[in-house]
């Protein structure tokens, strides 16, 4: 983890391939982080790197969004060829990846033809395809926490979002998760999220950082430190979170699992 920096300096955020991995509104995560910095009078340099363009390796935070199967494979190829994201992560940059983005940062994932592909290996997890309908609906965790790069466990409250994925992700021994799912599928084994050092993956759309400001601020804390995180007016988000908790618990949009899924325990 890099040392917290003075607030006058610039936080550099890189949105990776929004043209390939921007399907589910995850571009909003960049908007949220940038605004939460600006509202605290911290300068932000927000760069957006489309496919085919060279990726800088000097940013403080990288965002990888969700997308469809074909673009997911394309993004993986580009990231592997470039090597910039791996270099940045190895140097302690924060990486936040959602859904297809999380899958490609793992060790392996299935491509559009169901063929196993090598991921970037920044997260200790593998994603497999399972024989059941896509998990589509509200995703809500019990009280969650994230293990920060310095090893401290930081509480986040509940995490809320919308999930929409076919794969099941199995975290490996070196990874931690956000904790247990209350409503929805998450990783598929009752947990949600995969965390290794400063690399964080999740199935939460919504976008995740719009619906979970505690998580947004925790990622920022890893870059700018505690002192800079002055309180913000999150009353709109509080109202949204209350609304979504009710909806999830009323199973308004719970993913449907057949009796066969339940028997298989999948």
């Amino acid at each position, binding site marked *: 983890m890099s040392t917290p920096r003075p607030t006058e300096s610039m936080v550099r955020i890189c949105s990776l391939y929004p043209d390939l991995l921007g399907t*589910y509104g995850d571009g909003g995560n960049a908007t949220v982080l940038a605004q939460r910095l600006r509202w605290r009078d911290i300068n932000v340099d927000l760069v957006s790197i489309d496919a085919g363009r060279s990726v800088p390796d000097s940013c403080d935070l990288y965002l990888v969004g969700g997308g469809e199967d074909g673009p997911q494979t394309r993004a993986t190829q580009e990231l592997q060829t470039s090597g910039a994201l791996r270099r940045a992560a190895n140097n302690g940059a924060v990486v936040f990846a959602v859904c297809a983005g999380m899958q490609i940062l793992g060790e392996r994932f299935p491509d559009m033809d169901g063929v196993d592909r090598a991921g970037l290996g920044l997260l200790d997890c593998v994603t497999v395809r399972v024989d059941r309908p896509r998990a589509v609906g509200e995703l809500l965790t019990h009280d969650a926490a994230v293990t920060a790069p310095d090893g401290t466990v930081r509480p986040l409250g509940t995490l809320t979002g919308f999930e929409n994925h076919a794969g099941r992700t199995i975290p490996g021994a070196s990874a931690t998760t956000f904790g247990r799912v209350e409503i929805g599928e998450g990783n598929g084994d009752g947990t949600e999220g995969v965390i290794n050092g400063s690399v964080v993956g999740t199935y939460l759309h919504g976008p995740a950082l719009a619906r979970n400001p505690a998580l947004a601020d925790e990622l920022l804390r890893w870059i700018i430190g505690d002192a800079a995180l002055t309180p913000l007016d999150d009353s709109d988000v509080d109202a949204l979170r209350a609304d979504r908790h009710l909806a999830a618990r009323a199973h308004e949009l719970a993913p449907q699992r057949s009796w066969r899924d339940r028997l298989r325990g999948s």
Partner: protein
Amino acid sequence: MPSRSTSLPIRSRLAVGVGRLVAASSKAVHLGSGSVIGGRAALVVNPQLLRDLTAGRDVVIVSATNGKTTTTRLIAAALAGDRAVVSNSMGANMTAGIVAALGGAAANATAVLEVDERWVAGVLRATSAGTVVLLNLSRDQLDRTQEVRKLAEAWRTCLTATPPTTVIANADDPLVVWAAQVAPHVIWVATGQDWRADAAGCPQCAGRISFTGATWRCTDCELARPEPAMSVEDSAIATDAGRVPLSMRLPGRVNIVNAAFALATARSLAVPDDIAVAGLQSVEEVAGRYRVTSLAGRPVRLLLAKNPAGWHEAIELLADPPAPVVVSINARIADGHDPSWLWDVDFERLRSRFVVATGERRHDLAVRLRYADVEHVTADTIDEALRVAMGRPAYIAGRPVDIAANYTAFQEYFERVGGSQ
């Protein structure tokens, strides 16, 4: 109106009768217009009904993510001065709604059919439509619909299997071009569409689409913008056969684009330009879209915007700032359960306005507006939203308040103003 029923097989006549009876019963107990449920009942009696009802007539299929209801209406208007037309003009665009609309049609009427983008293959197979109009494809209801590339692939497959005489398609939408280029005869319309967020990946090869100026091509394969036969200008349509000036009552550039597709369709059916243009210019509203009316005793204008590509156009149509606007968002089945597309809308463009957020997902919208630095409040009901908007200092007394709503929210207000058929 001459009845077609005598030329129909007996099973189809029975099916149409049953459908009407069910529709009338449904309407009588206030379950809506009853057309869809009536159509379903008719299809139970005769699953081949769509084939029978379209046999021997000219059929035009219109599909897209955005603009299909409006374009269907414009095509019907462009043809109406030349011939009898039947159309599912209220947007019931799956098989049941289509057979309901066709049930009472004259035998020689040209069918202008709005078709849900997922139902094009089935309707094309059943009707062997001579003309297929494909406007655009973008993300909409991702939790429900197939991925957008798969939709394009389904279009491509059905245009190969049942080739229409003429396809009229958007030259500026790479997904549409990839789908339509397999057809034997395509009239390409240059729309100048600048919503490109859904088309960055090449549908053909997983390469990347590179846009330069007005044109585009894939960086890896031969997919590229075709040579257009028509292109859209500010208040005219440029064609191979000269420039056609247009003075539309429907607002915005987006409706000149829709009119261009309608003009191309009219020409392909040998309708003279002057007749077509007169029809296009006569349309004032389409199934409540753009309607200026009174809701809860207050003057309003209804606008439909249901996904990022639609919003991209709709923001231009709103009353000039600083007029306050009401935005209403639901997330029911027909809207898609996941409103995270709100983050792909450039709501920052509303910064000089005051927005009242309403609808069932008003809190999602409020968070989006907060991060866009747009001044806003939420209102639990549309009545309260209008009261708040009209209480703003920037509201000019007597002016209609623009309500921009996504699909089910729009339908709710439309029904309240007595809009349903």
